[in-house]
């Protein structure tokens, strides 16, 4: 398990361009988010079937908003604020109107019992929200595990252009998650 300081250190390394540190950070956060999302859904009297959507949407938000973390401040309050915003938003859209304080059910980032990932039924559908080229790029990198450079070579694009397209695609995905499957 990673302490809150470890997570801040990983985020700093990630900012310095260390992709492996960033991957470790995101994996740890995904485990934590899964627990938080399940509890939040349970609190609201919902089943766990949507929990992976909340996990993925929140991870995307953390990623796209990561530069709003001021690195002179601790990381954990920032993470909790993002999670609170996202989880409450999801529960509201599922009809939950009561006040929910994340501090009541989101335990420490360092010590929690991980749970199994449930299949996210509509995650494939989310990718359908993307224009074809962007979808190809996202699938090649995420599902097939290629690097941005390899994908560029295959598609006859520069690595930079692949990254720009990827970034745009992630922004579109974030909007698609927020709207929910429809």
């Amino acid at each position: 398990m990673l302490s809150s300081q470890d997570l801040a250190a990983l985020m700093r390394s990630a900012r310095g361009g260390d992709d492996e540190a960033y991957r470790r950070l995101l994996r740890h956060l995904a485990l934590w988010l899964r627990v938080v999302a399940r509890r939040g859904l349970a609190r609201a009297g919902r089943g766990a079937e949507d929990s992976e959507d909340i996990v993925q949407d929140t991870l995307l938000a953390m990623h796209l908003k990561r530069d709003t973390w001021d690195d002179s401040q601790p990381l954990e309050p920032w993470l909790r604020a993002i999670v609170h915003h996202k989880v409450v938003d999801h529960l509201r859209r599922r009809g939950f109107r009561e006040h929910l304080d994340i501090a009541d059910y989101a335990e420490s980032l360092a010590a929690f019992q991980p749970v199994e990932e449930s299949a996210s039924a509509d995650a494939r559908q989310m990718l359908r929200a993307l224009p074809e080229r962007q979808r190809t790029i996202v699938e090649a990198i995420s599902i097939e595990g290629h690097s941005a450079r390899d994908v560029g070579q295959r598609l006859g694009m520069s690595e930079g252009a692949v990254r720009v397209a990827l970034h745009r695609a992630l922004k579109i995905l974030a909007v698609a998650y927020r709207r929910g499957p429809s």
Partner: protein
Amino acid sequence: MKTDQLIAALAADRTAEPFGRRFVLSFLIGGLISLGLFLAILGPRHDLAEALATWRFDFKIVLMVLILGLAFSFCREVARPVAPPHPARGLLLPLAALVAALVIELVIVPRAAWGTRLVGSNSLICLTAIPFFSIGPLIAVLAILRSGAPTSPALAGAAAGLLAAACGATLYAFHCFDDSPLFVATWYTLAALPVVGIGALAGRRLLRW
């Protein structure tokens, strides 16, 4: 898509310049557009040098610059998910200064002249110029706030409106001949309110994430 697969995509995406720097840059672009428009359309009053020797004009300018600076930091704070407990508290300082100036004005100006001071001669220009010179900064600040993470979109939008209005008001203050705190407190406020309101409405629509 499995969450691990999403993580692979996220890790391949490197962008991110510090939010603070992008916020400053975006605000400067909006502000410079307004400055250009101001110089082209209105320009500073022709007796600027003499005006600078009067306390009313100086007070007006200092007040506007103070509000501009405080609105800037207020807006930047509420754009982050973890805002300090009372981000708008600093704005009480210019408010107190304005109340003090109003009291002084009411004491030294005879009662019969209060009306003329209040109405001034530029109220209509004031009501149009301040919102007009707010447009550029408002658009620029709302645009950058979209990449921020405000926990309250309406509040962040209102803060953007206040910052934009402070920008417009600071520019307009250099043009206006009505320096009485009575005029400033009334008309500048009335001119700023719709900008703040539009900012709040736009924020509620545009700044959700």
